[in-house]
């Protein structure tokens, strides 16, 4: 079938048209799909789109695809789908209608393709006309110093200073109560400290001051800080004894630092 197509087409197409088709191939990346390509090809017929020969156009397209194949240009699948459809359309247009086939006639299909091409061209023109219009920010301009200061206040939210202070009091109160709920006596037992630290040790991969292990809030009150520091220190000694942590101190009264002992290594 391909062969007979070739012959037939070389009859129909002028040299000029074939050159045009080749030029189009070079430009294949520039096409926006098969319909765009068909529209471009139709221009070589130099007639109004209303009078275009769809049969002729189908042949032009098939030549294009053949040429692309020869030049080993890989066409996207939708170009090939269109080629198959056009080959089908061509056969419908050339063969006498088969009365047993209830599908649309070749003429109907051709008319639809012509409609699609006209519509695409019409939209191209419309797009060009649209872009040729005067445009805001290029040809005409809005007010440069708008004065719509109060527009935003269409919905005003009511909140008074009292609301604000009450809200703050609310969150502050919540905050202050939290530590005291945990322990009212300002005394941290070693057991409590140990339990706390056991949970934290797996994450203590780097040296950190012992003081950073005090429970939250306890560092503020001197009394509580003292108790918590003593308990935490005692607990850390216990952990050293168990081989879970290492302790170090840079000098007299320097901060005591603590770090988890990597499992499997001996104490240095």
């Amino acid at each position, binding site marked *: 079938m391909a062969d007979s197509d070739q012959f037939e087409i070389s009859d129909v197409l002028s040299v000029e048209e074939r050159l045009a088709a080749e030029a189009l191939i070079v430009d294949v990346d520039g096409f*926006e*799909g*098969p*319909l*765009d390509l*068909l529209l471009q090809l139709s221009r070589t017929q130099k007639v109004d789109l209303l009078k275009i020969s769809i049969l002729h156009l189908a042949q032009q397209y098939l030549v294009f695809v053949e040429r692309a194949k020869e030049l080993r240009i890989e066409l996207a699948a*939708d170009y090939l789908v269109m080629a198959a459809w056009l080959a089908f359309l061509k056969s419908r247009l050339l063969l006498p209608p088969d009365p047993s086939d209830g*599908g*649309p*006639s070749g003429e*109907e*299909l051709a*008319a*639809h393709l012509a*409609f*699609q091409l*006209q*519509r*695409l061209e*019409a*939209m*191209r*023109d*419309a*797009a060009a*006309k*649209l*872009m040729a*219009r*005067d*445009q*805001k*920010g*290029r*040809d*005409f*301009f*809005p*007010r*440069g110093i*708008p*004065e*719509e200061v109060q527009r935003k206040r269409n919905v005003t939210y009511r909140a008074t200073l009292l609301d604000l202070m009450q809200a703050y009091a609310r969150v502050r109160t919540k905050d202050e109560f939290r530590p005291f709920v945990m322990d009212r006596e300002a005394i941290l037992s070693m057991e409590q400290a140990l339990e706390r630290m056991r949970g934290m040790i797996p994450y203590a991969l780097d040296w950190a001051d012992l003081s950073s292990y005090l429970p939250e809030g306890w560092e503020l009150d001197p009394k509580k800080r003292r108790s918590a520091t003593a308990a935490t220190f005692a607990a850390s000694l216990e952990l050293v004894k168990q081989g879970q942590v290492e302790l170090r101190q840079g000098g007299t009264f320097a901060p005591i630092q603590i770090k988890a002992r990597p499992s499997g290594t001996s104490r240095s």
Partner: protein
Amino acid sequence: MAETDQKVEHVESLFEAPPLAEQERMVEAVLFASADPVTLADLAARMPHGCEPRAALDLLQKRYEGRGVRVVRVGDAWAIRTAPDLGFLMQKETTETRKLSRAAIETLAIIAYHQPCTRAEIEEIRGVSVSRGTLDQLMELEWIRFGRRRMSPGRPVTYVVTPDFLDHFGLESARDLPGVKELRAAGLLDSRPMPGDGDLGDGDEEQDDLFEDES
């Protein structure tokens, strides 16, 4: 609400509304103050009771005919814009818009002329798939937005153009798109199904609806 309010306003207007010339000044002030188009409803809400912004607008529009700035209509809103022939004075104000790709421009035109328009319809017209980025870019420019979902299987979303689009291209409504009447008369805005394919016909009715909306 509109009905009764209007009556009340008319009654009041006999006594209270400022003279039309004064209303014109007010409309002038409000339009000058805003960079965006102001709707009639917004004007009415801001002006004293009994005012008729529409009549004042007509006066104002006439007053600015041929001047350096003009009173233009954008959908159901109004704005003052500089006369296009003076654009050359405004190099300093010119805003560089990213150059739109051919695909984006065509997609925009298709949505404008065929709205509300589904993605499948855009693809059908262009014969090529629409990249996500193209629609995103147009959305970002606020030239298109989602319209109602189509009542066809899959309930696809539709796209429509926005008042910003009209404003940008100096259009009063989508009916004023260049050549829209001729295109419609030529049947080129119909969604015509491929012979032998199921019909896609319901698009048309909705489309007319939307253009009705814009008037």
